[in-house]
């Protein structure tokens, strides 16, 4: 009898976890958490959990074999272990899916620092930015309205080490989106995005400094669209990038808030 109850609880754990995985994948919430190359694993994992759950319900462990001694299948036979697993695995993830806002708050910018503060780091993006074709993030897109090109922060940083891209970008007005983070003065701010390799847990902020003629008047972490001209300069062996903005307008968060 206890085995049957354990089976039901174990299956419930798998169904619960599988439901969270599939719902995140199905609703697109997963886009805020994982690099695209890892996302299919979530869907496959969710399906496998359902298959395992069904198998768990339809079969029973052989009690004869279990009684031979040395059995380490504690979850198959012990109610306490099944309940503990249900609580720790299923309930915690369900709680996470309920309470998570699918984004970091401002504290993360303080705790993790900005990855691109040292100009050398922009070299890491140079390999991603492919001129003039579409890069890893779909970055340098077709010419947009008003002779401006739509770029990502990674393109602007990557151009520091990529001369053809830099020459191309520096002669154009650019449209770039990111989160507003106040700078040391009202005449500049940090346009920031989170950059992830695998998952949001390894995400770190990257930014470009934007110069404005008047205070922008938006709160920190408000998504904004900046239209301006990037200026690259080199001093003391380091590259410096400044975007002189003509326009800064608040916008809604983009579908893919993270860059990768």
């Amino acid at each position, binding site marked *: 009898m206890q085995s049957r109850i354990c089976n039901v609880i174990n299956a419930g754990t798998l169904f619960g976890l599988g439901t969270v995985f599939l719902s995140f994948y199905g609703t697109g919430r997963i886009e805020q958490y994982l690099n695209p190359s890892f996302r299919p694993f979530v869907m496959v994992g969710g399906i496998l959990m359902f298959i395992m759950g069904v198998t768990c319900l339809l079969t029973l*462990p052989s009690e004869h074999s279990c009684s*031979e001694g040395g059995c380490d299948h504690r979850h198959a036979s012990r109610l306490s272990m099944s309940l503990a697993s249900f609580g720790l695995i299923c309930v915690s993830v369900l*709680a996470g899916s309920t309470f998570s806002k699918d984004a970091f708050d401002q504290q993360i910018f303080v705790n*993790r620092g900005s990855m691109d503060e040292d100009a050398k780091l922009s070299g*890491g993006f140079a390999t991603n930015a492919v001129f003039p074709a579409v890069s890893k993030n779909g970055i340098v897109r077709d010419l947009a309205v008003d002779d401006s090109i739509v770029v990502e922060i990674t393109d602007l940083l990557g151009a520091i080490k990529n001369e053809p891209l830099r020459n191309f970008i520096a002669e154009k007005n650019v449209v770039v989106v990111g989160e507003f983070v106040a700078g040391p003065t009202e005449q500049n701010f940090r346009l920031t995005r989170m950059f992830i390799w*695998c998952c949001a*847990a*390894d995400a770190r902020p990257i930014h470009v400094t934007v110069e404005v003629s008047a205070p922008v008047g938006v709160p920190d972490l408000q998504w904004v669209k900046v239209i301006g001209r990037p200026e690259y300069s080199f001093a003391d062996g380091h590259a410096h990038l400044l975007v002189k903005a003509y326009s800064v307008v608040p916008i809604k968060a983009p579908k893919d808030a993270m860059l990768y």
Partner: protein
Amino acid sequence: MRWFAFSWQNFWFSFLALVFEGVPFILLGSLISGIIGSFVPARVISGLLPKSRFPAILVSGLLGVIFPVCDCGTVPIVRRILKKGVPLSCGITYMLASPIVNPLVIISTIIAFQGQAPLLTAGLRIGFGYFIAVVIGLIVSSLPSESRLQKGLVTTGRSSRTAFTIAPLYGSGSEKMEAGFVRKASVAVRMATDDFLGTGFYFMIGAAIAATFNTAVNQRVILPLASDSVLSIISMMTLAGILTLCSTSDAFIAATFVTFPSAARMAFMIFGPMFDLKLIFLYSSLFKKRFVIALGVGLFFFVGLICAIFVSELYAIQDL
């Protein structure tokens, strides 16, 4: 500067990200474990490894090339092969080496360190990662398994058969006993389920603690330590333990710490995949607590020493 600032929003976001990233690999490891448990006889597993101790440990350290599973996925596999009678020394060598000595990690390290001696960095990481795993395996081989492993994993002859273990029956001379494919597959899934729940239990604890430190600790507190060759290594290994990154992505993070010496970044990339907050709990599903602690402390000192003496010297020769 506050070194610790907790936020529930950041915690839940990071926790779920770790779950979505890690759980599919634990599932994969559990399925491999279930398949090994149900379909592969013990004698086949034993036959894969040389008979004598030293060559067996050397081969175990290279198995990650064939089974490129990350650190989360190795635990259920090690659990299963230990039950199949593989010596603890070989299991632990595979467990420590495979998150580093595998093709995905080699490629990601080379890509991450573009412009920063990528081939040398990848080579040193693999070479020293393998060396350290083999040395730990050799040390463990001189210790009795019974005192290191959790109760259910200690092999004591016939009495160690488990609920769903079909394979050992073949290995013990009962080849005539046939089980249909469907039954074996169902047993494999049941085994995988139990391995998954057992490993996932510890993973969730580790992921929750990792998410706390990963988001709440101000990582800038370690920056002043970058100028000291010894402290930089210690601080980067501590950071690796706290961040609990996947070994396929940690090189990208390490590459961004350009203010730190190359040897410190190497310590980050060798120690992290072998031992971090999440792995403490995953290892606890295999080993007794005292052994997990001893393993962590031993690895910390050993990796630190290797990086402080040999890796820094090798980078210095290359003028890096």
